[in-house]
Structures are given as C-alpha cells and as structure tokens.
C-alpha cells in the first residue's frame, strides 16, 4: 500500500537561511507520527510546506496518490488535509459555531449545502471538544485553552484523512492534555492519520508510534519513541543532556 503522505527531498530557504534541506518522510495510513526538535529546527516550516501555506523550493509532496506540490492550500484541505496553527488563528469576528461552520460549508458539504444541517454538525463538533456551551460566544473573547480547542474543532470539521497538529497542547494543563490526547487517539482509532508537533515530551512519547527529530532543517533521528528517547544525539540537542 502506498503511504498517505510522501514528502520527497523537500527544501525551503528564507533568504540565506536554510529552513529545510532535503527532508524526505513517508507517513502511512492510520499512523501516529510525532515530530520533535528544538526551536527553529524547521518543524513548522515542514508543516507549512506539507499544507501549502508555503511553497517548497524543491522536492515534491504526494498526498493520497496525487502530487500536491503545486496545489494551493485550500485544495489540499479539500483532498483531506487539515491543520491547526501553532499560534491560534480564530476567525475573531465570528462565533465559535460560525468558525466551525466555515470548513463544513467549504469542505464537507461543498455542493450539497441546501441539504446540510450546518448548525447541528457545528454544535456536535464543539460538544465533542467541550465547547458546546460556548457555541454562540465570540471567538475573539476566548481563553488560550479554548482557542486551542477551537483550532482542533475547526480542523476536525473538514473531516480530514490527515490531521496535522502544530503544538495544539501548548499551555494546557495536564488534565487537559490527557483530554485532548484522548480525543486525538479516538480519531486515530477511527482511521485518521495524525502528525503531531509537540514540546510536551510526555504527550508525544505516549501518543506516537514513530517519532522524527528535526535539527537545523534535517531529519537527524527517526524511530519508535523509546528508541528516540535513548538516542544520544537527540538527548544532546533536544533534551540538553
């Protein structure tokens, strides 16, 4: 079976700074992949290249059997990619329900809007994320924690086959981390492939089947979590030990 996501020799530079050099990565269907690495190692740039927010300078990106290297980001979302942003980017002038309604209208029910129960589905997704009672509140007035949950809710509303989470748990309490982990693991059990960037090691080690460690734009270690945690290079550059 071909992998769901095939990143082949992707490079990206910003002026003289090389953010990614020759990164290749395959993600198989249903996999839970963790990406770690120190700040500035290219994790978010890699995600941006995969999702289309940035165009890679060279290399190719294949998704679900098609080459998406040149596709704009909204088309990749329609093919089944969804992401959360490291710094939450809510639609601040809208309510939570409307925030979630956007992907429902533009991805899931595109072309059959007249038959869809957008409000009902938006409420169900918010309910699942524990934001049900806030559905009609303005997204501009949310706390950091709720903003992160909204990011996740909005990504899920597109019903992606590949979910990419960029530090979705940063700032959450350990109870909330467990809660979000539970939700994501549940989605994965239903067949969703998940890529997770995270600094919370406890979460990433528990969550991932495979961990990739980036450093200075290159993959410097890759393997099962316990293996990565023992890798001397990873310990040196990432854990500072």
């Amino acid at each position, binding site marked *: 079976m071909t992998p769901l996501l095939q990143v082949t020799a992707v490079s990206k530079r910003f002026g003289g700074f090389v953010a990614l050099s020759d990164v290749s990565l395959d993600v198989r269907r249903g996999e839970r992949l963790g990406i770690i690495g120190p700040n500035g190692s290219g994790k978010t740039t890699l995600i941006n290249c995969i*999702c*289309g*927010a940035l165009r890679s300078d060279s290399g190719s990106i294949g998704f679900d059997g098609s080459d998406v290297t040149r596709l*704009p*980001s*909204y088309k990749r*979302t*329609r093919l089944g990619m*969804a*992401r959360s*942003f*490291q*710094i939450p*980017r*809510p*639609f*601040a*002038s*809208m*309510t939570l*329900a*409307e925030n979630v*309604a*956007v*992907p429902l*209208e*533009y*991805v899931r029910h*595109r072309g059959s*809007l007249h038959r*869809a*129960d*957008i*409000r*009902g*589905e*938006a*409420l169900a997704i918010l309910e699942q994320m524990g934001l049900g009672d806030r559905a*009609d509140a*303005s*997204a*501009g*007035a949310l706390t950091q924690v709720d903003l992160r949950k909204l990011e996740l809710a*909005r*990504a899920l*509303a*597109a019903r992606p086959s590949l979910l990419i989470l960029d530090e979705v748990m940063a700032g959450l309490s350990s109870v909330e981390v467990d809660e979000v982990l539970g939700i994501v693991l549940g989605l994965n059990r239903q067949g969703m492939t998940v890529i997770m960037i995270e600094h919370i090691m406890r979460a990433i080690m528990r969550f991932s089947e495979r961990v990739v460690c980036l450093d200075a734009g290159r993959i410097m270690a890759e393997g099962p979590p316990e293996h990565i945690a023992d890798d001397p290079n990873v310990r040196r550059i990432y854990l500072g030990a």
Partner: protein
Amino acid sequence: MRDWTKFIAGAVAIIAAAVVLTRMVQNEYVFFASYVVLQFVVLATAWNILGGAAGYVNFGSGAFFATGAYTAVALIKAFDAPLVVQLLVAAIVTGALGFLVGALTLRLRGIFFSIATVAVAVICETVVVNWSFVGGSRGIAVLQPPAPALFGSYTRLLFVAMALLAVLAVALARYVQISWIGRGLRAIRDNEEAAESVGVPTMKLKLFAATASGALMGIAGAPFPLYMSFIEPTSAFSLNYAVSALAMPIIGGTASWVGPVIGAVLLGSVQQIVTVTVSSELNVLVVGLLLVTFVVVAPQGILGLVRKLLRRSKGPLPARDKIPLPGRHKAPLPLGEGRVRDNKRQ
C-alpha cells in the same frame, strides 16, 4: 425563508412607493435629490461587498463610478443605446476593471489593492480627459430622450430606475452576507491563512467580491450623464464619490448590509440639505467631519452604537442583528462583536 419573503415584500414596497411618488409629487427637485441619495445607496453597498466583508479598502470608487458614466456616454454617442443597455455594458466594463485590479493586486495581502485603486482613478481620468469622442476635458452634453407618459419627466424615470437598482444592489449584498460566500469573506478578513487552511478559496472569493463590487459601482454611475444632461471629467471623477463610498458604510456600520443603506440615506440627505441651505462646497467637509467623528467615537458605525445601546438596556441582542446558520437548530447566532484585526503574522 420567512426572512426572504419579508425582504422581498420590503423591496417591492419601496419600488411601488417610488412609482407612486412620481405620480403624486409635483416638485421636480424631490426626484433630483432622491436620485442622488439612491445612487449613493448603490455605491456604498457596492463598496461594502469588498471593503466591509473582506476588509479590502477601495479608494478609487470614483473611478469605477465615472467609468460607468463614461461607458454610458460612449454608448449613447456611438449607438444611441437605451438605458438598459448602458447599465448592462457599464456593469460589464467596471466589473472587468474590478477583476483586473483584483487579479493584479489581491494576491498580495494588505494595502496593495488599496494603493492600486488610487492609481486606477488617475489612469481612468487621464484616459477620459484625452478621449475627445466622449468630450475630453471640456465635457459633453447628453440629451435626455423624451420621457414615457407614465413618469412625466425623464428625471422621474431615472429616479425609479435608481430605486430599482438600489434594491437589486442591496439584495445582492444581503445574499452575499448571509450565504456561505459572506462567511468565507469574513474568514478572509479575520485571518486569510486560516481561511485558506479550512478550504476557503481566498483568491477566487476576493476576485468575485472585487468584480461584483466594481460592477455595482459602474451601474451607479451609468445613468449619471442622462441625469445631469452634461458630464465632464472633474465632476465625474470627483473625490466626493470615492470619499462618500467608503464614509457611508463606515458611518452606517460595515458589519451588515443595513449599514451602508443607513449611512447613504443619512449622509446623502445631509449633503443635499447642506448643498441647498448652505453651500455645495461645504458638503464634502460635512462628510469628512462625520467620518472622522465616527472613526474616533463609534468605529462600529451606527449599527454598532445601536447594538451597544440595546445590549445595555435589554441584555441579549435582538434577533434581527443575528445571522442564523442553516440547519434544523434555529436558534440564531449573533454577529461577532469586536472586529479584532487578528495577528496576520506570527
């Protein structure tokens, strides 16, 4: 659907009232002045489709308006084309102009579109000044055709036509606002990258809004030569149109289709009164002062003020100010409040 029937009933009532007015009122000035107010309803509504919904500010509304007017002049001179044809062709020409400016600049976020619209104003005026077929800088006289018996005078016919156009423009703006298109445009305004990431084709939507907005501005300008019986570049490209087109929605409130209508009726009427009672030079000053006052005191416009007052006295928002999401659960959703310009960059 109840909302739609109410809206259509209101629209039909306005057009009927306009027709009845032409039969009842003797004073020709009433139609002369009301035409201008209605023309500003179209112009302000057009501006708001792109400026209010998506947050891309057009400083060159005057150029779109005048291009519509001069398209009509060219058609009258070349083919003696009837009003309907003038309106349609003007819409196509200025819609194409909107599309072109959008295609060139909307790929870049931020202020580039606004700067380009200023340039468009200069370019269009230069073209017209040097185009002697439509009168060049001297201007050109346009004869009103004889009025049909029903209306009594051609100005009255133009007044009814502008009432119809205003209703159509507002209907389009209202549809855009409450449909998925409007939610997409607001998503773009709030955060373009996030909008793209949840499947919103941002470039296509912005181009659609720029085209629709441009076409409506041209439609507002197309009957202008016949209305004035004379047109010359300085008055057609007057700064007054560009300023009014953005001042009216901002003063009325950009969050809803009602805002530009309120702003246009209010400001347009004040301008007419000032022109008659004080001086015609002063009315631009009035617009400027009101704009500054509102931007400082009530950035959400009159709609925002009303909403704030209602909330203070009653608590929850009135149902009319809410946009419901489609679906079985009919509890209405309020429009978002603080139009926070979100961090576009990390």
